[in-house]
């Protein structure tokens, strides 16, 4: 075999040991050394260079969570089932409805692994949620050093329990015995092969996936027995998950409906619209603030809405997750728009009825016609309620 053909063969069979990239177009050469360009954003890794395991502290931590409430029967059952599967060495998908309290259902598993001196990580896509989960975990485990690792919080990267964004998992190759991956169907993790590789590489034990909206990949994996499924569709207050009313009408009538609804309701109202441009004119019409990805003071606006400083807020799907406002009513404008996938609609209407004080509320999907996503959203939510 001559040198050129040998070179071609080597070139074609290169593989990055961090992100598993094998696409020759995504490698570059630097003075005879090949390196992977797909994961260079994390740091440069030359071909053939092994990924060094993260050197983290390990110690046995016999802790119990401190909670001023008990798990419901369904939560306790889901928690026990998940732990049983994890102990048997399976990865687990916890298919939990929005607001069902899936974070609490992970505590028993966390305690089991920590007691055995194993390393645990809770990873989620969104930075803001990392900080919230870190605070909650610290309150559950006051004696532990629970750290957040995300943009702006990277000085300390080791603790008794690590809460991080999925991006930050690149710091922890071969580190965790239990990796809890929350919102696996959300941007940027969903469909991102690079992040999936890095997440998989960070775990040497079991992965516990959490989501209210599993995509086809996970459904197939569960069906094929590659991971175990644990379902939790009941909210702690035992009320059913709000299933949206579907109202089909032209766009101009939808606007009138929204105006009328806002006029007749005093509760907080979230109006979801498809685009940033829609945000601006709708907010102008309703004379209220709006939030989209380009809004500069997003956090302040959200805080003000939570504090009831104003009662109407127009937003894009940016707020489909992570926002909890007591007694909020939700309207979706132009529900047939492509941006509203079934997963997105399930998350959006999941904002309703999350608190014990207001376990129900109005969830209305306005659309020109009920497309597959709208129908699928209704079907899935109805199935969840029927399951309970």
């Amino acid at each position: 075999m001559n040198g050129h053909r040998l070179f071609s063969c080597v070139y074609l069979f290169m593989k990055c040991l961090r992100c598993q990239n094998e696409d020759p177009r995504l490698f570059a050469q630097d003075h005879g050394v090949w390196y992977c360009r797909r994961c260079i954003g994390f740091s440069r890794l030359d071909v053939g260079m092994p990924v060094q395991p993260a050197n983290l502290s390990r110690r046995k931590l016999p802790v119990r969570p401190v909670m001023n409430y008990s798990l419901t029967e369904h939560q306790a059952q889901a928690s026990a089932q998940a732990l049983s599967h994890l102990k048997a060495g399976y990865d687990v998908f916890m298919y939990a409805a929005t607001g069902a309290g899936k974070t609490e259902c992970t505590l028993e598993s966390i305690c089991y692994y920590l007691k055995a001196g194993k390393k645990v990580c809770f990873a989620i896509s969104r930075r803001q949620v990392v900080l919230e989960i870190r605070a909650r975990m610290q309150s559950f485990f006051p004696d532990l050093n629970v750290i957040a690792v995300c943009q702006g919080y990277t000085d300390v990267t080791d603790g008794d329990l690590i809460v991080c964004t999925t991006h930050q998992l690149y710091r922890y190759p071969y580190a965790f015995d239990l990796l809890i991956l929350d919102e696996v169907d959300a941007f940027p993790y969903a469909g991102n092969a690079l992040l999936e590789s890095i997440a998989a590489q960070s775990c040497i034990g079991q992965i516990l996936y959490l989501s209210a909206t599993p995509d086809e990949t996970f459904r197939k994996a569960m069906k094929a027995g590659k991971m175990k499924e644990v379902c939790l569709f009941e909210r702690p207050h035992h009320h059913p998950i709000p299933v949206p009313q579907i109202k089909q009408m032209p766009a101009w009538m939808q606007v009138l409906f929204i105006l009328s609804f806002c006029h007749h309701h005093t509760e907080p109202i979230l109006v979801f619209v498809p685009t940033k441009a829609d945000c601006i004119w709708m907010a102008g019409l309703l004379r209220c603030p709006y939030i989209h990805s380009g809004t500069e003071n997003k956090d302040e606006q959200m805080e003000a809405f939570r504090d009831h400083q104003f009662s109407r807020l127009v937003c894009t799907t940016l707020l489909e997750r992570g926002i909890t406002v007591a007694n909020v009513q939700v309207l979706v404008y132009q529900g047939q728009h492509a941006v509203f996938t079934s997963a997105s609609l399930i998350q959006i209407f999941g904002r309703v009825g999350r608190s014990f004080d207001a376990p129900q509320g109005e969830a209305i999907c306005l659309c020109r016609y009920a497309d597959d996503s709208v129908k699928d959203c209704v079907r899935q939510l109805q199935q969840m309620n029927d399951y309970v």
Partner: protein
Amino acid sequence: MICPDCRQQLIVRKEIYHVHGADWFVLYEYDPFLERLLFQWKEQGDVALAPLFLDRRVFRKWSRDRILLGPPSSAEKRMARGFETISAIYEPFEIYFPFYKTSAVKQSKQSAAARRQIDQIIQKKTLYPLPKGPYLLVDDVCTTGSTLTACLDLIPADRVFVLAGHPLWLETHSQNLVVKRQ
């Protein structure tokens, strides 16, 4: 190196400003996208990006009949990266480096006020063999322009070429704009 969609994100200026007695050619605007690319190349070692930055056709025209001078650089950075940034950007053009810093100060880590004191730190190498001019001073990013004006005070050049100009510098010197986007 980068896809056509990403290449479109580069904000091309190709403008000439008359500042501090010299004509300054600014190729791009220094925005977060370009900043990220430069970081990926310089600090993360993505050498495949190096040829991306300079428009050689434009530079060849601007640098004709001139001796190219580079700003002072850090020996530590050169060793850590394994290459000299300015030489790599302007390859294959030959660059002379007749300046040095009396203390290891990184401009990008200084406040705007501190940056303007740079003329007290940059000096000319006394025994450096430098061909006769005219000279063209080159750099990668012009933020406040303090480094380049300090160099111009030590070795007058009638032309400057920067890869990217910071939006604030471009705005501040908008009155000095001689030739708008070519």
